[in-house]
C-alpha cells in the first residue's frame, strides 16, 4: 500500500510555482522588477527563479517603477509576455502614468491595433505595523480604469492558478497579493483544473446575509462567519476574486436570496471598492433588500504604526460580526 502525503504549501510558494510553471511553459514569459533576482523578491516570492532561469529572464530592475513597468508594456507590445513585479502597491503610484495612460488606454486609443499582454503583480494591504506609506490598499484605483483586468487572489489555489490565465489574456492584468497572505499554509492545489479569472467565488454558503469581500479580508470574514454560525446566523461569503470587471451576477444572485448584504474592504470607505459594490447592489437588488447594505472598511486615517491603533483602523472579524448583526437584527 502506498500513501501520498500532502505536505502542503504556502501562498508564497504557490505564486512562485505559478511563475516557475509559466516560465517553463512559454519562453516569452519573463520576470522583471526590483530585487526579484539575487534578493529573491522583496517578500521572497521569486527565490530560486534566478538560478533556474538566469538573468535574462529574471531581471533585477533599478528603482525606476515608471521605467520598468513601462518597459514591461513595451516588451509586451514587442511580443514578450512579461510579469512585472512592483514590490508593493505603495510604490506603484510612481508608475501610474504607464499603467493608466499607456497600458489601459493603448488598445482603445489605437483603434484596436495594439493590445498589451502584460501582467503586473504587487503586494497590497496593511496589518503588519508598516505605517502609512507601506500599508495602502489601493487596488480600487485600478478597478476604476477601463482596459485593465484586476485580480485579487485570496486563496492558495488562486495564487497558484490565476497567473497563467492572466498571461493568456491579451490585455493588461493587475494582480494584487495581500502581504499578510504569503505565509498562509494549505494543501497544494490541483493544478490540473483550469482557473477562471472572470467570476467571483462563493466561499461559504448561507441564507441570512451575504458578505462580499476580497483578498486579505477573506480570512477575517470567514472567521466572522464561523462565529455567527454559532449564533445561528448563516453567512454567505463571496470572494470577489476579480475586481474588474466585477462579477455582478454572483453577488446579485446571492443577495436576492439572503436579502441582506455587508461589504468588507480593507480600502478606505470614501470612493472605495466597497462603495462600488454597495452601489451596484442598491441599483439592482434594491427591492430585494431587507436592510441597508452595510460596510466594513479601513478607518479614514493614514494607517498608523502602533499595533493597537492599526488594529482599530483595519477591518476585523469582530467588526464584521457587528456589521452582520446590524443587518440581520434589523427587521425588514
Amino acid at each position, binding site marked *: 500500500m502506498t500513501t501520498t502525503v500532502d505536505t502542503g504549501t504556502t501562498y508564497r510558494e504557490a505564486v512562485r510555482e505559478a511563475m516557475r510553471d509559466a516560465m517553463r511553459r512559454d519562453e516569452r514569459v519573463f520576470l522583471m522588477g526590483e530585487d526579484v533576482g539575487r534578493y529573491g523578491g522583496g517578500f521572497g516570492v521569486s527565490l530560486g527563479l534566478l538560478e533556474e532561469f538566469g538573468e535574462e529572464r529574471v531581471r533585477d530592475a533599478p528603482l525606476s517603477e*515608471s521605467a520598468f513597468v513601462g518597459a514591461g508594456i513595451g516588451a509586451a507590445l514587442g511580443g514578450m509576455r512579461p510579469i512585472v513585479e512592483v514590490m508593493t502597491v505603495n510604490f506603484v503610484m*510612481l508608475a501610474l502614468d504607464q499603467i493608466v495612460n499607456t497600458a489601459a488606454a493603448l488598445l482603445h486609443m489605437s*483603434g484596436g491595433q495594439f493590445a498589451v499582454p502584460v501582467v503586473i503583480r504587487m503586494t497590497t494591504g496593511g496589518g503588519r505595523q508598516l505605517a502609512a506609506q507601506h500599508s495602502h490598499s489601493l487596488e480600487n484605483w485600478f478597478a476604476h480604469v477601463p482596459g485593465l483586468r484586476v485580480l485579487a487572489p485570496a486563496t492558495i489555489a488562486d495564487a497558484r492558478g490565476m497567473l497563467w490565465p492572466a498571461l493568456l489574456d491579451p490585455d493588461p492584468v493587475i494582480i494584487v497579493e495581500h502581504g499578510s497572505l504569503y505565509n498562509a499554509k494549505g494543501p497544494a492545489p490541483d493544478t490540473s483544473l483550469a482557473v477562471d479569472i472572470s467570476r467571483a467565488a462563493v466561499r461559504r454558503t448561507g441564507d441570512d446575509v451575504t458578505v462580499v469581500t476580497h483578498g486579505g479580508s477573506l480570512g477575517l470574514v470567514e472567521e466572522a462567519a464561523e462565529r455567527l454560525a454559532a449564533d445561528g446566523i448563516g453567512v454567505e461569503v463571496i470572494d470577489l476574486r476579480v475586481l*474588474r470587471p466585477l462579477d455582478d451576477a454572483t453577488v446579485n444572485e446571492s443577495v436576492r436570496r439572503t436579502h441582506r448584504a455587508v461589504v468588507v474592504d480593507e480600502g478606505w470607505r470614501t470612493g472605495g471598492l466597497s462603495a462600488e459594490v454597495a452601489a451596484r447592489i442598491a441599483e439592482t437588488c434594491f427591492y430585494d433588500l431587507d436592510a441597508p447594505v452595510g460596510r466594513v472598511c479601513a478607518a479614514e486615517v493614514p494607517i498608523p504604526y502602533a499595533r493597537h491603533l492599526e488594529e482599530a483602523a483595519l477591518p476585523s472579524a469582530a467588526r464584521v460580526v457587528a456589521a452582520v448583526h446590524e443587518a440581520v437584527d434589523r427587521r425588514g
Partner: protein
Amino acid sequence: MSAARRTAVRAAAPERVDVGRSAGAAPDPVTLYRRMVLIRRFEERCAELYSAGTIRGFLHLYIGEEAVAVGVLDHLGPDDAVVATYRDHGQALARGVPAGPIMAEMFGRLEGVCRGRGGSMHLFHAPTRFFGGNGIVGGGLPLAVGLALADHMQGRERVTVCFFGEGAMAEGEFHESINLAALWKLPVLFLCENNLYAMGTALDRSESETNLAVKAASYEVPAWSCDGMDVLAVWEAAHRAVELVRSGGGPVFLEAKTYRFRAHSMYDPDRYRSKEEIEHWRERDPLLLMRARLAADGVDAAAQDRIEEEVAAEIDAAVAFAEAGTDEPVESLLAFVTSDEVTS
C-alpha cells in the same frame, strides 16, 4: 475581440508601407525635400481645417521641425519601431503612415488610422510599427525601452527610435528610461527634438544644465547634437547614431536643435517669445535651406514646383479621403476597451 474583427480593424488601415531607407550611405536630397514639403503642406492644411472647426481637440503642428523626423526616419527599415510624441503628424508622415488615414483620424472618422479614437495626439499604425502618438510628456520613453528589450531578448537586430522634446528631459521618465536602456544595452535611439520651449517655458528656465547631450552622456550613453534645421545634417548624425544602435552597443542619444515656427498648439497665444526670435529662426527654415541646396545641385525651379504640385494633390486626396469618411456607429463606443470587447 474576435479574430475576424481584429482582421477587419487591421484591414481598415491601408497597408502602404513606404519606409524605404535611402540606399547605401548617401541621402537622396530630392526624396528628403519632398517628405519635408509633404509635412509642411499637410500641417498648413491642418491649421486651416482647425480654424474652420473641422479638426478639434489639441493640435500641435510640426512646422519648422520637419528636417528632424525626415532626416532620422530615413534610416529605418520596416521592422524597426518608432515611438512618437503628441506633435506626431510629421513623425508619422516621415515614417510612411499614409496621409489620408492620418487626416481622417483628425476628422474623427472610422477610416482614420485609429478609427477616430485617438485624434491628432494619438496616431498609431501597426503596419509601419508606429507606436504613437503619446500625450504625456516623457510617457513614450519607457515604452521604447520595452520594445527594445523585446528585440534584445528575441535576438532581433532592430532599432527603436524614441522621439521626445527637451521638456521631457525634466521628467523622471527620461532619467529612468535612459538609465535602464544603458544598463541593459538596449537598442534605442533617444531622439530629442529640442525646440527650446516646453510649451511656454524656455530651456534655460527649466534645466540647470542646458547642454542636453552632457546630461545624457552622464548615463554612459554616446550623445551628441546636430543642426535640426538642416535635413542633411540630421541625416548624417542619425546615420551614425542608428548604425551605432544597430551594431548592438546599446542606446544612443541624439539632440536635434530645432524650432517650431507655430505656437505650441492652436490654443497657444505665443506670448513667451519674441517675433524677432521667430523671424531669426525662420531664416533657417529647413525647406529654404534645402531649396538652396537643391538649386546648387542643379534641381531647377520647375522640378521643385512639380514636387509642390504632387504634394498638393496628395494632400487634396487625403482631405477628400477624410471628408468621404464615415462615423463609427455609437453602438461601437465600448469596442477595443478590452480585446474581447467585454465591458463592465
